[in-house]
């Protein structure tokens, strides 16, 4: 076997002869680690760095036939710098070690091949580096390389160059889009620190005039390389000559190419100034195999030289004119061949190339399938909760948003909002628009409509937005808005209501069914029943002041809710909205923040809605209410039973929402042919229900059961009862309502609207 000879001083095979601590540890490990044999030890100097080298023979795990020529006995040199600053270098000493396998470092011609074992930086490697782990890693590198599986088929292709700490951010379509007229591609340095060297450059198409107003800029040149087969990591080029050599192997003569570009540049305006830099952006199409399809485009960028002029002089593109300026150099080709020495003094700073974020990326980084993110959404209410739900979803590239709110931003809003003090006095939606647009160019708001949502009959823009929407997210905490959206607005959109309770401890999301059979008003009715029935939710709407639905609006300076609570809920509710609309079923769920920091989820069980037209009124209720009455009825059979109905009225639309039926008070008289409802405890029950529901749910009527075989027609007694109730309810302006439950879940509703009600 023909092997490379390691120059240097031979060392005794003793632990103490090594300067590198890692070399000592490795020496100890090689005394027992299987499938390695220590042959000899040396010490050598390379590029002023001192190394301890352990020469070993490894026997990697290999089957009999292999894709690449890795041998059963591979001689290696493990080289440790004395300071242990870098991961040890691993040289394959066999002269005919395959040169064309992936994950080899670039080395000078004739030097042993070096295995590239880590893709983490040295400081990270240091945290877990042990000699056995390192030996196992080498053995695995050889075993997998032999089978061609080190680079798995589904793994991204290997980068052409090692990672750089510095970056340039380029437009996504830089190499494909046509050059915009009158604009110049320039790199604007955003960070340029010297110690330690740190660059961050953003590449933009700027109008020529604007470009020149910058203190200094990078003139950007784009170079498209021919396709190459991946593999063989190259070391960072140190100067222009290195880069020139590197690209020449790929078929491009960089010095000539640069000279041509620089000459084209000079006659044009603006002329580069002494301080301007040259930024080279290179695109290298990568193939998995020769002649295969281009799998991805590797992009690299370099800041070349200390200034563009320096480079231009070095590649003989310009010459200094007698007046002290510069002029393009025209001369014979012999003169124009730059001297290698001229290029070695031009430093090269590699930059990582990152593309501007596009919406698809935002989806991907968020784990969202792009197909589910394209929805036309309208946000009603840009308050504390609304703005934060909106931004969470929009950031991920989810939804195309129109923002609706008539409020202006007030100083105290800053405490619980994504906007801040600079927006005070502006319409919330306008401020949101100009705040979010530069942040999320990949998902700008479609429209900001500074109008009251209730203005949809007058505001054409708003009406159209609602009509075209796929989804309307109502965070307005206004009962009127929710009702209007559910029942009056002309839209095919599915409605979502999201709100917090007055204390900010509970958050609620209600989502209509995809077929809109369960509309928001029905979900609201069932939400109240859950509050009425569920003991745990007794304090759900606590702290409510008066009858304005879900309490303290943002205009109420007295409301005390912490921003951290709003954030928790905004995250939960945003996610529930995003995932919830993927399901066709209606959903109503609330989340409670507990004292101990946990969050309790309380799903609300929904039941199929029913409604009856009775004269000019529509009675809205559901299966669950009927089931409740029938269950109470069957418990008392053959006697009749009954009780009161609780719910609420919508005078505008003439709707009666029946929320629940209460059982008979204990002093009721239940007979086989009659029922007289008592009063004991009734007042207290109604107070409690009112308390729990922010005074929204109250008495609406009476219910009773009929014995078997009688049907649900009103008896003469029932008619009298209904008339009496109607007379009483007239004083509140509502009709009297009675509900009769009979056999087999049969039921009937009767209304009495006295004249003048």
């Amino acid at each position, binding site marked *: 076997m023909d092997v490379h000879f390691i120059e240097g001083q031979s060392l005794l095979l003793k632990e103490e002869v090594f300067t590198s601590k890692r070399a000592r540890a490795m020496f100890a490990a090689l005394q*027992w*680690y*299987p*499938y390695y044999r220590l042959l000899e030890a040396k010490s050598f100097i390379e590029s002023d760095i001192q190394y301890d080298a352990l020469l070993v023979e490894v*026997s*990697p*795990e*290999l*089957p*009999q*036939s*292999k894709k690449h020529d890795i041998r*059963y006995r591979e001689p290696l040199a493990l080289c440790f710098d004395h300071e242990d600053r870098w991961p040890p270098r691993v040289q394959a000493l066999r002269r005919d070690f395959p040169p064309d396998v992936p994950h080899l470092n670039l080395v000078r011609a004739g030097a042993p091949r070096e295995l590239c074992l880590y893709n983490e930086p040295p400081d990270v490697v240091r945290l877990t580096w042990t000699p*056995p782990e390192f030996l*196992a890693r080498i*053995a*695995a590198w050889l075993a997998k390389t032999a*089978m061609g599986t080190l680079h798995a088929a589904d793994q991204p292709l290997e980068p052409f160059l090692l990672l750089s700490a510095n970056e340039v951010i380029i437009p996504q379509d830089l190499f494909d889009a046509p050059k915009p007229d009158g604009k110049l591609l320039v790199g604007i340095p955003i960070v340029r620190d010297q110690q330690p060297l740190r660059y961050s450059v953003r590449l933009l198409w700027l109008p020529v005039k604007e470009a020149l107003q910058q203190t200094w800029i990078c003139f950007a040149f784009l170079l498209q390389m021919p396709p190459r087969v991946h593999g063989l990591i190259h070391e960072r080029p140190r100067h222009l000559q290195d880069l020139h050599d590197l690209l020449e192997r790929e078929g491009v003569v960089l010095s000539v190419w640069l000279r041509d570009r620089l000459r084209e540049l000079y006659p044009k305006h603006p002329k580069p100034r002494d301080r301007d830099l040259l930024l080279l952006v290179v695109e290298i199409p990568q193939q998995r195999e020769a002649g295969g399809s281009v799998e991805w485009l590797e992009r690299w960028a370099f800041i070349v030289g200390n200034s563009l002029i320096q480079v231009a002089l070095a590649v003989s593109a310009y010459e200094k004119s007698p007046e002290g300026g510069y002029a393009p150099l025209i001369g014979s080709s012999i003169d124009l061949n730059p001297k290698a020495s001229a290029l070695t003094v031009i430093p090269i700073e590699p930059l990582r190339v990152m593309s501007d974020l596009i919406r698809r990326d935002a989806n991907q980084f968020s784990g969202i399938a792009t197909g589910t993110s394209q929805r036309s959404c309208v946000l009603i209410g840009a308050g504390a909760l609304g703005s934060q739900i909106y931004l969470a979803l929009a950031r991920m590239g989810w939804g195309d948003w129109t923002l609706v709110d008539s409020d202006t931003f007030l100083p105290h809003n800053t405490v619980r909002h994504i906007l801040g003090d600079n927006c005070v006095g502006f319409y919330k939606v306008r401020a949101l628009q100009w705040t979010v647009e530069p942040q999320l160019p990949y998902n700008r708001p479609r429209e900001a409509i500074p109008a009251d949502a209730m203005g949809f009959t007058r505001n054409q823009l708003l009406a159209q937005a609602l009509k075209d929407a796929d989804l309307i997210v109502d965070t307005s905490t206004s009962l009127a808005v929710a009702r209007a959206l559910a029942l009056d607005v002309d839209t095919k959109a599915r409605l979502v209501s999201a709100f917090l309770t007055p204390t900010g401890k509970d958050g609620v999301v209600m989502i209509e069914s995809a077929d809109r059979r369960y509309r928001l008003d029905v979900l609201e009715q069932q939400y109240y029943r859950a509050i009425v029935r569920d003991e745990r939710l007794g304090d759900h709407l606590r702290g409510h002041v008066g009858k304005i639905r879900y309490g303290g609006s943002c205009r109420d300076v007295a409301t005390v809710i912490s921003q951290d609570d709003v954030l928790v809920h905004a995250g939960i509710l945003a996610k529930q909205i995003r995932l919830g609309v993927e399901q066709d079923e209606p959903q109503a769920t609330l989340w409670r923040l507990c004292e101990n920091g946990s969050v309790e989820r309380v799903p609300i069980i929904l039941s199929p809605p029913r409604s009856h037209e009775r004269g000019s009124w529509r009675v809205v209720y559901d299966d669950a209410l009927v089931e409740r009455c029938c269950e109470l009825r069957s418990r008392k059979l053959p006697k009749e039973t009954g009780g009161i109905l609780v719910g609420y009225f919508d005078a505008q639309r003439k709707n009666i929402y029946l929320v629940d039926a209460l059982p008979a008070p204990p002093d009721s008289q239940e007979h086989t042919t009659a029922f007289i409802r008592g009063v004991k405890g009734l007042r207290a029950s109604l107070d409690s229900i009112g308390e729990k529901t922010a005074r929204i749910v109250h008495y609406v009527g009476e219910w009773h059961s009929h014995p078997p075989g009688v049907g649900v027609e009103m008896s003469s007694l029932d008619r009298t009862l209904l008339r009496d109730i109607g007379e009483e309810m007239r004083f509140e302006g509502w009709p009297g309502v009675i509900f009769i439950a009979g056999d087999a879940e049969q039921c009937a509703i009767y209304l009495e609207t006295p004249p003048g009600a």
Partner: protein
Amino acid sequence: MHKVKFYPVGNGDCSQIILENGKRLLFDYCHRGVSEDHDDPRIDLATALRQELAEVERDAFDIVGFTHLDDDHICGSTEFFYFEHAAKYQSDDRIKIGELWVPAAILMEKGLTGEKEVLRQEARYRLKNGRGIRVFSKPEKLTEWLESEGLTLESRRHLITDAGQLVPDFEKQRDGVEFFVHSPFSKHCDGDTVQRNEAALILHATFLVGLTETRYLMIGDSEWEVLVDIVNITRSKKRDDRLKWDIYNVPHHCSYLALGPEKGKDKTQPANEVQWLLDQGQRGCILISSSDPIPTEDTDLPPHRQAAQTYRDTIRKNDGDRFEVTMEHPNTKRPKPIVIEIGAYGAKLIKTASGGSIAITSKPSPRAG
């Protein structure tokens, strides 16, 4: 992918073939009580095999072959296996044998006691019953014995395989493997006294995965004269292919006598035919010595360092992978079974270091005080 495993049982033998189709073939068994002691480097074979079977929810091997009746190839077997011939060997925790493979000599050997006698009884019982057994070679004596039991050779013909034949139970295309019988020959079994090592079972397995054939020469305790015979007979029948090998089970715990008549100073010079046989090792071949670690000093008993050197040279010469010793793999303190995978790329000796936290957490810890 098929697997071949060799267990570190000291100077003894136990190996297993696990076919891709799940079939398991165990060859020889050597469990010494002292191996249950934690400080003994030898594997606690009974426990290890039970665990392996439990992992695949089985309580039987499809095939158990005993190459011959020497202690180091059968030791402890009567406490481990379920035997059909007597109720005392039939407790629930015993491991069942689908088919028992034995050389014919086992059936006729006289004056046996202890475990040897139990195994002979089991083989006889199965042959009389006419199922669950395969007998290799059919010496005159076997016919005599059958007749004394009131049976004819003809009625048991299908249970007997001669040297030079393929074992009928396995087909290369169907099972991914076939077994060619090299030994015993009838002459080995017909002497007045049975020469166990000479009458031992020697098989040549050919695995087929995809289009790749991998060959495993399974030699028990044979000495060089038997190998010379085998090479000569096989070559005279133009069956050189049956002597090619990718895996070679080094005979008799690396004794020089499996190579040639003289131990030699630094290495054993093999007999010409044996040298020829070693030369049949293919590129990347693997030699396994089922033995104690190779000593650095001269020893009377195997393993012999001179023989080991000859095998190491064979690996170098044939561009083979390793000469591996069961009690040295991966170290002498805590040897672990040697595993060879056989796939479309041929044989691959598994070298992935098997220590570390995964190893610790997959077995009970040593006793704590």
